[in-house]
């Protein structure tokens, strides 16, 4: 089944920002124990967060991030049924909220405030929450069994004993079925076909008027692209940038970072919420749209098996342009610390994220869209910290599983039954 993510934005009543902040923090302080929002009762929800964006042009806004299985309508329905009172409590701080504690009208309210998500990324594509939890349970049960297994003699026997153990446990009967496949068609979007057709039409359409006119058309296109490239290079040379100030003066104020960090590293996973200002003008806006669409496409079609490029630690992430093109919102649910995450960004994926964030005001100086930028290690981190905002309330359905763990669990299940050559068998047993 496919994973989706909703971004829901509501205006907060100006006087109610502080109480809402306090409310969200109180729920978020111990999200596993609180009862206002029974996240665990929504069996499709992987990660969620409520955060406040206070300083935007349209006034204070409440942003609700969700990452779930199945359709948006079903998710919102389940959530509003399970968390009616909590949602009512939260959204009563918003200026246009009138729903009351009626789950149907809450659901409609949320639905009405969904905004577009430009780039939604899921690392374990097709893995539903129930599959992730089940697969982990399977591994834990087998681990327990292996703990009691007397000194094993050979690989074949070990696997056979594991199979016998699982067969004898009716609560693990589901593991005989392979996990649902995540097919090419599920990954494909109608949009891909449309865009691809448009590109083909633009490139080759003028062929209809003969070879010669097509040749001219290509020349026009190339000149146009060269023009755009020159505009980009010029902007890159002249846009104001954090790289213009000495590195020792680039770090954000200590109090700001201290507040952000106070929310981090309470579990092995962390959350990152950041808002940057998109550089003004149609050029940067359009470029950003194109880059985000491209990353969305690549993420969906290529990087759905546990890592984005070479980064194996992002569960769900999204970029989206909000407030009529003014800001770029980034939300990420990742394994490990902030420093580790940012390090991985720079070491493994600098060009991709430079292509995105170079369209934001004050980003480290870039060349040719993807060069420089995040490679300016310290100022990039200073920039990222400076643009990060406080996460009031954040939920993870499996806070102790890393992406690598999830992929490993899935491979354990996938290799439990059926024929296996000796090499594959050894590799499979290495997964425990």
């Amino acid at each position, binding site marked *: 089944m496919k994973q989706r993510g909703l971004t829901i934005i509501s205006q907060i009543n100006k006087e109610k920002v502080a109480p809402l902040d306090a409310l969200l923090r109180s729920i978020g302080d111990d999200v596993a124990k609180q009862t206002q929002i029974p996240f665990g009762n929504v069996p499709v929800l992987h990660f969620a967060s409520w955060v406040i964006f206070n300083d935007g042009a349209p006034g204070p806004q409440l942003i609700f991030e969700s990452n779930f299985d199945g359709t948006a309508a079903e998710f919102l329905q389940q959530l509003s049924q399970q968390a009616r009172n909590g949602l009512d409590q939260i959204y009563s701080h918003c200026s246009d909220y009138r729903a009351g504690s009626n789950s149907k009208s809450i659901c409609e309210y949320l639905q009405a405030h969904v905004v577009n998500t430009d780039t939604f990324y899921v690392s374990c594509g097709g893995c539903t929450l129930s599959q992730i939890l089940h697969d982990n349970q399977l591994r834990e049960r087998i681990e327990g069994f*292996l703990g009691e297994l007397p000194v094993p003699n050979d690989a074949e026997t*070990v696997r056979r004993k594991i199979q016998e153990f699982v067969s004898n446990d009716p609560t693990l009967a589901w593991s005989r079925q392979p996990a649902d496949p995540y097919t090419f068609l599920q990954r494909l979007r109608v949009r891909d076909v449309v865009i691809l057709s448009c590109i083909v039409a633009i490139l080759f359409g003028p062929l209809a008027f003969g070879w010669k006119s097509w040749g001219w058309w290509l020349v026009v296109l190339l000149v146009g692209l060269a023009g755009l490239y020159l505009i980009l290079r010029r902007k890159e040379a002249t846009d104001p940038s954090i790289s213009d100030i000495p590195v020792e003066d680039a770090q954000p104020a200590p109090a700001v970072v*201290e507040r952000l960090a*106070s929310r981090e590293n309470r579990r092995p996973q962390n959350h990152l919420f950041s808002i940057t200002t998109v550089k003004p003008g149609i050029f940067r806006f359009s470029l950003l749209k194109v880059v985000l669409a491209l990353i969305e496409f690549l993420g969906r079609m290529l990087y759905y098996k546990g890592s984005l490029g070479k980064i194996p630690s992002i569960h769900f992430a999204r970029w989206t342009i909000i407030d009529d093109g003014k800001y770029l919102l980034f939300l990420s649910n990742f394994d490990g610390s902030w*420093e580790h995450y940012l390090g991985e960004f720079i070491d493994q994926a600098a060009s991709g994220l430079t292509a995105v964030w170079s369209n934001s005001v004050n980003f480290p100086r870039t060349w040719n869209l993807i060069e420089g930028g995040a490679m300016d290690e310290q100022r990039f981190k200073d920039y990222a910290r400076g643009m990060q905002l406080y996460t009031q309330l954040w939920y993870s359905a499996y806070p102790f599983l890393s992406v690598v763990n999830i992929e*490993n669990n899935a491979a354990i299940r996938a290799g439990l039954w059926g024929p296996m050559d000796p090499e594959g068998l050894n590799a499979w047993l290495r997964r425990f």
Partner: protein
Amino acid sequence: MLETRDIQGLVLSGYAKHRFAAFTFLTIRDGVEVEGWLAKLSERITGAENFDRHRTTSINIAFTYQGLVRLRLGSSTLLTFPLEFIEGMSNGARAQLLGDDPDTWLWGKPDHRIHVLLMLFATDARTLSELLGSERRAQQGLLDEVLVINSETFPFSPDSKLNREHFGFVDGLSQPDIAGYRPERYGANGPGNIIKPGEFILGYGNEYFGQLTASPHLRPPDTDPGAILRGNDLGRNGTYLVVRQMEQDVPGFWNMIRAQCARADGTPEPLAEEALAAKVIGRWRDGTPVAVSPDHNGGDPRSLNDFGFAGDPHGDKCPLGAHMRRANPREMLLADKQESITTVKRHRMVRRGRPYGPLIADRYTPDGHARGLVFATLNANIERQFEFLQQAWISSPNFAGLYDEADPMLGGRTQNPGGFTLPKCPIRQRRSGVLPHVTVKGGAYFFMPGLAGLRYMGASSLR
């Protein structure tokens, strides 16, 4: 080229011949001026230029952020220090990151009064106590001792050049080679261990494409009329020193290992104990890496650091979660060896730790003495080096694809399940109850200035 004339000696030497040391943590009295003391002291500080082989003592100095405030550096200048240094090791969020519980510490809690760390080294106990005495006289009326940790190093065996820590293992084998500094002394394990100086000393290019690591500068820049500093760079040739007092429960550790290995009837299995302890650490007690020699000790003492994990991808020899593999994954952090090396080089540190407390007579029998390691490492970027290492490798439950383990020697975050996986063919062995027996008793971040920086700080007329 390193400006060795301006670098404190400890950065480039572990002073192996100075077997005795005193870490003296000092507080500056309220309302006194210590610039005069500092100016004189700076002349006694051991520099890295032309070490006198026959000298019997060394002195080095470092400051906490609170110490710099007390020395009345300008507030804008202070803000050019990195945030983690300003906040300090016991800051709430940093403790959370490091997996520490500063409430239980003996020193270094957020309200600590430690300003200066004066490190004294000497060839013998008497020389050290004379040195300590003369430094105390110089401090009289100006500074008070908050804490003194005395240290004596112990040779692994009577004729060995290598030192041991309290659990009994050779320590301090893995050190980075600094690019461009005394290449004739590089180890044999190749370019992966040669690290750009900017990783350890401010003012030089680092492992991110030779960029300069952020160094504190004078703000406003015209507060150095005597032009003591070069280009207002207060940090130049300085670095950051991370100190942690790590208490080691030696009987606790060895009795835990004994219980893990004992036969069903309780009879101890000494050979199995040595083997399991070696797996936990990643080396046999004599320093032989288990990744090279999984079944026995006795490796060549000259090449104990010249190895990698490429021949042991699954951890059959050296478990993936062994202390040494977490502390330095070498070329096996990522799927690609070259990328691993590039990444690992961005998280290395120079280690200058020393043991404290007496050696234990019998490793299984408690004797009531406190003992451990004064962990002391040098790095130019605390957040990217020490803190990263501690969080992402040492204490991460998910390191190397594991599920819920932490460093079996140092432990990890608050709840440690004590799991330890020993990969094997056909199937791994998993132990539980491999609990850490090292407890952090205190710690702080220090700025260790270059000698010009130190002279600037001691030049009271400038403020």
